[in-house]
């Protein structure tokens, strides 16, 4: 792998649940392990998709990567520096280099800011010289294919459509010319008809500007379109990590296999087999012992209850956390 821009080392986020009277008497603090020991590295300019169902911790992971919340355990390094130690000017520099694209464009812009002031705000906050503002804003707007820039500048967010808003949100991240972007479900709130446009812009950003990106999504098809590498998460843990095409064509973890199978395709002859897994996600307050997926896994056997499977290499650059792939056994 090329030089790593971002290194995540056993990062975990535990949220305390408010205590019931019983908990208080028992002197117990219950925690939800939203993210529980995630390790991966992201190379410069690499785009990675993080997939998993709602509640698997992918959004929490994204927020940790941008220092919006602090990890309870583990470390996150950006360009060789632990982001937990950043403050003052160093933090501002990190803010300039790492940006976020939001899920809901209708809420990501302050309703009382015009588009122009929304775009200028990041530049002002990070002390970009005033002379550069115009040019940078113009360039970002062109990047996201918003022509007729002057007309947009005077408008308020409620006057734009969802697709236009998401482009503005994207432009707002790009004015800072970042090296790393986290996109949290960037198109899930948009009409299908405008998704393709946004996705094309995002693919271009990765390819032409060389921005490393993490796309958080529940949609494998989207990830396949934009990302070269895919990470599957289940209940706060990484269960599979590999090149996207590999993961989609030859998924190695039973959970990824189910996800791939669940993607609807417009072929009428698609087999309508029942999904191999059933039930919903277990209560994250009380996850199963050993492999967290075992109670929904069609292949579960005794060892799965006793031992949490580590990520094992199953093919070049392709890892899966499943006892089925333990060569030694």
């Amino acid at each position: 792998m090329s030089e790593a821009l971002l290194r995540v080392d056993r990062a975990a986020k535990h949220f305390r649940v408010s205590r019931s009277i019983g908990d208080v008497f028992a002197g117990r603090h219950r925690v939800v392990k939203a993210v529980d020991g995630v390790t991966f590295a992201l190379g410069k300019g690499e785009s990675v998709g993080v997939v998993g169902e709602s509640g698997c911790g992918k959004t929490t992971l994204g927020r940790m990567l941008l220092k919006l919340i602090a990890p309870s355990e583990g470390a996150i390094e950006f360009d060789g520096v632990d982001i937990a130690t950043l403050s003052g000017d160093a933090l501002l520099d990190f803010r300039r280099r790492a940006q976020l694209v939001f899920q809901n464009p209708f809420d990501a812009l302050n309703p009382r800011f015009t588009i122009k002031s929304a775009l200028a705000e990041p530049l002002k906050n990070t002390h970009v010289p005033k002379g550069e503002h115009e040019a940078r804003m113009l360039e970002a707007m062109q990047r996201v294919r918003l022509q007729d820039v002057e007309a947009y500048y005077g408008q308020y967010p409620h006057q734009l459509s969802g697709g236009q808003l998401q482009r503005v949100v994207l432009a707002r991240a790009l004015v800072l010319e970042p090296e790393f972007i986290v996109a949290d479900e960037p198109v899930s709130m948009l009409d299908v008809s405008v998704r393709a446009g946004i996705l094309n812009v995002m693919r271009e950003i990765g390819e032409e500007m060389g921005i490393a990106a993490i796309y958080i999504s529940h949609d494998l098809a989207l990830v396949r379109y934009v990302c070269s590498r895919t990470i599957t998460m289940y209940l706060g843990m990484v269960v599979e990590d590999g090149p996207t095409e590999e993961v989609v064509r030859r998924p190695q973890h039973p959970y990824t296999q189910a996800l791939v199978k669940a993607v609807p395709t417009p072929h009428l002859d698609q087999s309508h087999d029942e999904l191999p897994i059933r039930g919903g996600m277990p209560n994250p307050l009380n996850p199963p012992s050993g492999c967290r997926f075992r109670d929904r896994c069609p292949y579960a056997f005794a060892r799965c209850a006793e031992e949490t499977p580590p990520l094992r290499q199953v093919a070049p650059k392709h890892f899966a956390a499943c006892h089925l792939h333990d060569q030694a056994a």
Partner: protein
Amino acid sequence: MAAQVDTSPAGAAAKPRAAWHRRLKQVLPTSDPFAVAGILIYVVFILVAIFADQLATHDPMEILFTDTYKLARSLPPGPDHLLGTTNVGRDIYSQLIYGTRGALLIGFAAAAAVVAVGTLVGLVSGYLGGWVDNVLMRLADIALGIPFLPFVVVLAAFLRPSMWNVVFAITILLWPNSGRVIRSQVLSVRERAFVEAAVVTGASKAQILFVHIAPNVLPLSFLYGSIAVGWAILTEASISFLGFGPSDTVTWGYMLQDAYASQALSRGHYNWFVPPGVCIILVVLAGFFITRGYEEILFPKLRR
């Protein structure tokens, strides 16, 4: 491909005049007839307060005499004294005019203070949370628990019963209401994505609080301000009626107290005590109408 769909902003040609009108509608509830009536009542009272010197025919506290050098006591309304005179010969109409100035001054000053304190406390408390929030909210609980009239009586005893002390008392007693509501609004606004977006772009805490959150709770502050004006005027009237009011200003409450103490009621001097009563009712009612109009702007779901 699909990129071209998004290239021209909808309504880009919106005229500046329309925008100006929309702005006005955001600030003033002009669509509700009751609210418009309330605004009109306020406008009239404000004009009266401003031009009190020109409108009044006499000095409100001057003891007047008739042409025959007799005390002009308890005269009925007439061309010389539009609303008659009090039992010691003061011009009621002039008192009413100056009373408007006193009442509005106290009302607006107290409302401004209540809104300023309440908004600041609400913003800080809601955004910082933790022990700051705890301390401020317990203070609010204490202030809410203070019984109103005894507190004012004690305050009047310790400080001189002046207009500013009345404003001070009203502020102490009313800030928790707006503070709590602003706080709860801040709690919801700070969770919105654009606040996080500001964090990601490197905004400081003060910037987030005053540039991003405050403008989004300010309409609520205005709402509480318009409620507070009416409350403050009513409060001042009751304080004055009990005789603890400002001794340096003529207010409607003072007029009522004067009338009550002089047994105007039993003597049938309606021209003395009805006008200030009507004025208090009108101002409070107008405040309520405006508030109602604001509510519809702030919470559009209330519209029928």
